Structures are given as structure tokens and as C-alpha cells.
């Protein structure tokens, strides 16, 4: 079994509790879903943190959106290996930890990988980072694109 992202909701009101149950359910559904469950989950190291991601697709491309607030462009490393997108880097703490009354945010090394369902063209991958969101566009490889097949009726 893979190690999954630990979801932490600091506020203990009813809505947060319900959210937690919903997200646990979603997590369990994913674990038992043979199509996506294990392909998107990557083994993560016990130290560090794993940013949350969304994956979108249309007929030509995949788009991976990752939540990476508080980073500079230079602190984000993006690589692609065997159709698996890997994000990694390190988030440094602003201010001093000695004055911290409450620390909920994660600091230190992070890593995340996303196995894409089909082959992508590694030379055409582009990425943008704005307002703490990373957006990676991965065009599908020609052979992986859906094709229209003409069937002649006799």
C-alpha cells in the first residue's frame, strides 16, 4: 500500500468534521478504484509533505494543477520520466519559528508524482506558476490521441 497525503483540518467545527469524513471516503474510494487508485499515488518519503493536485484532460493534453503556495519559481523542480510527472523542492519558513504561536503549514522538502494514463510528448511540456498554483500542460503523444475511424457501410 502506498503512503497517502495526510489531510489536516485545524478547525474542529462541524463543517470541518464533515469535510474530513468526505475526504476520507474519497480517499478510500480511490484506494479501491483499480483504474486510478494506484496509478496516481506515488510512494512518498515519510519526511516532507505532498502538495495536492488536480488532473484534467481534453483530447490533446493533460493539465496538472498543484497547490504550492509560498514558493518561488526557482523552488519548484519539474521532471518527467516514463510518463510520470514529478514535482519536488523545498519550502523555507518565513519569519522565525521561535515567535510561532501556532504552526499549521508544512515546511521543508516536498515531492509529488503523477502517473499519466497515456503517453505524453516530453518535448512539449510547459508550466506556469501564479498565485501559488502550478499548472503543467502535457500534450498527449500522437499515438495516444483518440482517433476517428471511418467505417464504410456496404
Amino acid at each position: 500500500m502506498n503512503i497517502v497525503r495526510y489531510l489536516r483540518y485545524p478547525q474542529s467545527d462541524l463543517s470541518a468534521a464533515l469535510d474530513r469524513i468526505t475526504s476520507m471516503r474519497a480517499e478510500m474510494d480511490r484506494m479501491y478504484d483499480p483504474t486510478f487508485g494506484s496509478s496516481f499515488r506515488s510512494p512518498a518519503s515519510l519526511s516532507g509533505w505532498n502538495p495536492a493536485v488536480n488532473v484534467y484532460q481534453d483530447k490533446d493534453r493533460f493539465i496538472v494543477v498543484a497547490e504550492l503556495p509560498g514558493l518561488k519559481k526557482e523552488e519548484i523542480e519539474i521532471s518527467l520520466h516514463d510518463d510520470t510527472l514529478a514535482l519536488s523542492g523545498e519550502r523555507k519558513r518565513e519569519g522565525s519559528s521561535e515567535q510561532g504561536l501556532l504552526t499549521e503549514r508544512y515546511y521543508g522538502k516536498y515531492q509529488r508524482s503523477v502517473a499519466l494514463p497515456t503517453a505524453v510528448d516530453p518535448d512539449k511540456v510547459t508550466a506556469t506558476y501564479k498565485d501559488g498554483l502550478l499548472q503543467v500542460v502535457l500534450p498527449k503523444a500522437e499515438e495516444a490521441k483518440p482517433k476517428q475511424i471511418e467505417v464504410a457501410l456496404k
Partner: protein
Amino acid sequence: MVPNEDNRPVAYVTPLADIESADDGYVIRAEMPGVGKGELEITVDNGELMILGHRKPTDFTAELIYREIRPHDFRRVYELDPSIDTTKISAKIDDGVLTVTLPKAETVKPRKISVQ
């Protein structure tokens, strides 16, 4: 949950936030990825600070095939320490992290009394 005008509950995401304390005040740093300056609402009312960040829709149209990021807006309410000078609260957002600076009123700052 906070009811809206129709009295239906609205779901929010509670942003992860750090709070620092110093002699001259407090600093809150809250994670709101995807929120820019234009999507922020910050209010101080009745001794409470409310931070609200609206998420922008994606700038592309494509089918969502895997989701971990919840689509709801960010919202969190803090009860303010009475020592905070609410007229001097300031805020900025950079790379999806909201920083709210809450200075203490001059009268409550620690000061050294010189002995005559």
C-alpha cells in the same frame, strides 16, 4: 458552515495558517493557493477578523479526471486580542500566501520605565 442569503449552508476550505507573536503585534500567514489580490475580502467587525479568498475558475476547459483540490473558497475567522490596534491592521498576498499584520496598540506595548 455559514448560511448564505438563501439560508443554505456554504462550504469553505479552512486555510492552513501560521501565527507569530512578537512584542509589537501578531502576524498571520495563511495559505490560499490560486487567490490573488482581487479575490480577497478581509473584514474586522466586533473584535473578529474574517479572511475570505475566492478561487478563480481555471483558465482552460477540460475534463477533471482526478481531484484532491477542493473547489470551495477559503474562509477563516479569528477572534482578535483586545491589545490589537484594529485601525492599523494591514494585509498582502504573495504567491498564494496571505500575510496579515496586526500591530498592538501603543499603550499596551512593553516599555522600559527609567528610574529618576
